[in-house]
């Protein structure tokens, strides 16, 4: 018999749960194993020490105070006896959370209602609406619903020394929303001006370049709606 098994059996022996055969096998092992004999003695010592710890005295007021507290608890506040609150109470308890989630969803729907997620436009011959309506009727070259093709934009930017990298359009309407232009720092203004000229001047240029790589700058210009 291995010592690990013998020690497990010693724990069962304490509780009188060993049959005669296993008791005999254990006794045979103990005769030859001093470690397991020491373990049995340690188990017995620990057990005696545990049993000698005096029983704590129950505070005399505990039963009375518990009954008083129980009597003070309104019946409606108690659970229904199955350890769970009644179904109506559980539904009511969940209402504030549900209301908060609904409120968050509503607010986010309101905030994103007017948002347009742009699509990528072709840089070729597709035509886009450069200006949906005149922003300022006194401005030069402002015609409602003026159209411009991707190719025209690309050539204009190239002529100014830059490169048209991306066209963003409004899905469904084809309205031009923005352009990404890359150009050397000295040409970026000319490239932007070329875009402004083609699109009727309604161009918003970001205050700072979006990204600088080497001597070139990449910016995204937005067209005013």
């Amino acid at each position: 018999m291995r010592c690990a098994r013998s020690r497990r059996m010693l724990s069962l022996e304490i509780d009188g749960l060993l049959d005669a055969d296993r008791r005999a096998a254990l006794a045979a092992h103990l005769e030859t194993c001093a470690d397991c004999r020491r373990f049995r003695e340690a188990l017995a010592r620990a057990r005696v020490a545990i049993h000698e710890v005096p029983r704590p005295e129950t505070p005399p007021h505990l039963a009375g105070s518990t009954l008083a507290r129980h009597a003070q608890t309104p019946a409606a506040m108690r659970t229904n006896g199955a350890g769970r609150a009644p179904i109506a109470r559980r539904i009511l308890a969940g209402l504030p959370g549900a209301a908060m989630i609904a409120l968050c969803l509503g607010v986010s729907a309101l905030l994103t209602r007017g948002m347009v997620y742009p699509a990528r436009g072709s840089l070729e011959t597709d035509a886009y609406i450069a200006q949906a309506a005149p922003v300022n009727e006194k401005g030069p070259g402002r015609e409602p619903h003026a159209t411009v093709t991707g190719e025209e934009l690309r050539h204009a930017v190239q002529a100014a020394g830059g490169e048209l990298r991306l066209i963003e359009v409004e899905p469904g309407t084809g309205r031009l929303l923005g352009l990404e232009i890359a150009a050397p720092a000295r040409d970026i203004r000319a490239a932007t001006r070329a875009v402004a000229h083609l699109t009727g001047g309604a161009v918003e240029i970001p205050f700072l370049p979006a990204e600088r790589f080497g001597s070139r700058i990449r910016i995204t210009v937005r067209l005013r709606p």
Partner: protein
Amino acid sequence: MEPPVTQPSPEELVRSQVDRVYRLCSRLVANTDDAEECAQQSLLRALERLPSFRGRSELSTWVYRITVNVCRNFGRRDRLMRQRHLYGRITTAEDSLPLASRYESPEQVLSRVESDAAVTRAIRSLPYRQRAAVVLREMEGMSYSEIARTLRMPAGTVRSTLYRARRTLAHALEGVRP
């Protein structure tokens, strides 16, 4: 069809179980104040759930199960609170034991108190399930099947849990006077 169960009145339940509930709580939680609080919570919970008691087990086993769960949850909360340094010290057997006895010299009393404190510390340092199993077996005298029902574990797990607990205690209490 199950025969109808005669349920004790709230007063009968509390009076018949208060001692064993408090005793169990005082072994499972860190100090006497916590033990009193846990005992009261356990009895209140038992009173609330009394209508659902079907008599499938002994009333005492049913109350023990509630108590073990209350103490475990209290221990978790207590550990979190202690980690945040909000309150508390762990009291030991010295807090609750009498320091004078007609039949013992002061040295004997001191030795006994130290021994009991060591045992209490050793038991409280066990993992919760081992602690509950060893307290139910050694201090409350419950059978393996009752412990299995109380702790909701298979009988084989009770055997191995008790063995591990006893092995740890045997090592921890090696120097303690029996």
